[in-house]
């Protein structure tokens, strides 16, 4: 009962919008995953992926994103709902017959096979003619610049090279959909940034639809055509990275997307004022009266000399190079403010204020955007 209510509340401001100019490659239609012990991992999800689109599933661990991906791959059974690829129902199809290719977090390369065999194995099982296999492997290897490693075993490759081989194995399949399951989380930070760009370019160049699962919101923001934010087995919001960032549909999305996380304050709209504790700042025009959660991005928060907004007590400073993060308490609630590092640290008693247009208001109880 509770979950139904929650679901209803969450669906209000989460329009499932699809790029109308593209044909649909993948449709996830009311999909539910129920484990034999009754636990619900995915509680009814609708997502559409257009031709050539890269959709990122992002959410904290346990939100159902990997389960959803594995259901698309056919590695987990679908309890309810339907998964269609190119309009064909896939619920009962074998993973090999779904026209998908998957890149795993730990690469899952066959350790005893050379890179060449790793790439060719799936095609061999499909009885592809030898010359076709050779041509496809050569093409994928050239694309990924792994030609010189073709006769090595995975254990002789670095993490980045293994990652490329894993991608190559997906590419030679020439699938309808690429499925990426946190493919970069085993790489160090620098390599991760580089591979992220490469995945993006490659996917664009091949024009193959892709689902990319990650828990890293930076990866989600930089890679995605559209982001699907998942929480507790439900879709919180679907939208382009800028939409999700600029207009988070729920407090969950607001706090999950963006670094540092959006500041969320318990507040009350009282006339044209937004009261936080004893102090107040101007409320956005047309805000409904009553208690709300007020969201404010760290970079939109402004610190001014005391007296004009919420009293701000500075507690700690983090230097990030170009910016610095000022952690403190505004009217008793923890708040982060991003400031230009070139400017001197503010001194003396301070107040926090913001342009009313930069404030995000959410329902105080359900967390939906107002």
């Amino acid at each position, binding site marked *: 009962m509770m979950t139904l209510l929650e679901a209803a509340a969450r669906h209000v401001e989460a329009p499932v919008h699809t790029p109308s100019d593209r044909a649909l490659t993948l449709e996830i239609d009311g999909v539910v995953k129920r484990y034999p012990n009754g636990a619900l991992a995915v509680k009814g999800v609708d997502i559409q992926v257009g031709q050539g689109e890269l959709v990122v599933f992002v959410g904290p661990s346990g939100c159902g994103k990997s389960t959803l991906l594995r259901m698309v791959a056919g*590695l987990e059974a679908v309890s309810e709902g339907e998964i269609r690829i190119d309009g064909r129902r896939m619920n009962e199809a074998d993973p090999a017959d779904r026209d998908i290719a998957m890149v*795993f977090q730990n690469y*899952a390369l066959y350790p005893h096979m050379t890179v060449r065999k790793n790439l060719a194995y*799936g095609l061999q099982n499909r009885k592809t003619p030898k010359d076709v296999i050779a041509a496809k492997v050569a093409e994928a290897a050239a694309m990924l610049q792994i030609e010189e490693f073709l006769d090595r075993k995975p254990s002789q490759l670095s993490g980045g090279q293994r990652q490329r081989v894993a991608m190559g194995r997906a590419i030679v399949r020439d699938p309808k959909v690429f499925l990426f399951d946190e493919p970069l989380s085993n790489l160090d930070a620098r390599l991760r940034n580089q591979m992220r760009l490469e995945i993006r370019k490659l996917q664009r160049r091949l024009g193959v639809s892709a689902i990319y699962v990650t828990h890293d919101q930076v990866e989600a923001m930089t890679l995605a055509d559209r982001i699907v934010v998942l929480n507790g087995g439900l879709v919180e919001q679907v939208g382009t990275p800028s939409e999700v960032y600029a207009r988070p549909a729920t407090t969950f999305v607001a706090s999950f997307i963006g670094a540092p996380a959006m500041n969320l304050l318990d507040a009350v709209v009282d006339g044209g004022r937004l009261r936080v504790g004893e102090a107040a700042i101007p409320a956005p025009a047309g805000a409904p009266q009553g208690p709300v959660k007020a969201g404010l991005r760290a970079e939109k928060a402004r610190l001014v000399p005391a007296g004009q907004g919420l009293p701000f007590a500075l507690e700690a400073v983090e230097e990030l190079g170009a910016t610095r993060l000022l952690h403190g308490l505004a009217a008793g609630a923890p708040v982060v403010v991003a400031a230009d590092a070139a400017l001197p640290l503010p001194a003396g008693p301070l107040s926090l204020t913001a342009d009313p247009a930069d404030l995000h208001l959410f329902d105080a109880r359900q967390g939906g955007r107002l």
Partner: protein
Amino acid sequence: MTVSSDPALAASWSRATAAAGANRRRRNLQVYHHAVLIFGVALMMAPLLVAFASSTYDPIVIHSEGLQLGYGGEFASTYGAVLFDRGGFTGDITGVRMLWNSVILGLGFAVGKIVISMLAAYAIVYFRFPFGTVAFWIIFSTLLLPLEVRILPSYEVVQSMGMLNSWTGLILPLIASATATFYFRQFFKSVPDELLEAARIDGAGPVRFFLDILVPLSKTMMAAIFIIMFVVGWNQYLWPALMTTDESLFTIVRGIRQILQVWIGANIPEYNKALAMAILAMVPPALIVLIFQRAFVKGLVETEK
């Protein structure tokens, strides 16, 4: 005097002596370690050396003077006789034949156990079927019942199936192995699930996955099990003694006893031949261990995944 008056120099001097002392201690420790190892080797090798040395003497010398330590010069004749002379009750079993029989038993034993236990472990680890775990623990509990405990019923079964005096009867009843099944189960469980999933997406069915992925991955493991099982099979004594009465199926381990038993009238037992045969019986397992040693250690220690 001047040295000790400079504190820095004094400090470096004492550091140097300390380092030299540590080196000396380490060297002393190494000498000690080697002494222990050499003593152990001597302890284990001495009986073998005595056996080999004595086997090159005439039985009369051994009988009158006891075991020998030097080389007696009868090597070629003794070993030639042991290997090629027809003997036994029926008079047509040779040492070579017995060695060959042991090889067949050892190989059949080892290969059979590997095949069966790999398939059993594959079923237990990768397939969900009713009572799968129960089945595994039943297999595992047979470790508590060594062959000697169940030898009479086993004999009864083999006998009633008419498989006495045959290779099938010798090898087949012993081909299931709880130990090997357990080892392979543990190994398969350590293979990442993603490999199976990747193979499924690559269109490999259960048989392909087993043959193309699991078997090659298990190579070192198979080598380790092979060594253990070959040696166990080679050294079987009680089982072949019960299952075979036909001398053409005798193994070399039984041959040793056969030779010593021939003590007719006032004849001196052919100690030299018995010892030669014991040495011969030890060579093939030793060779197998030497050849597969690296794979053996690798299989039990590291996993290439």
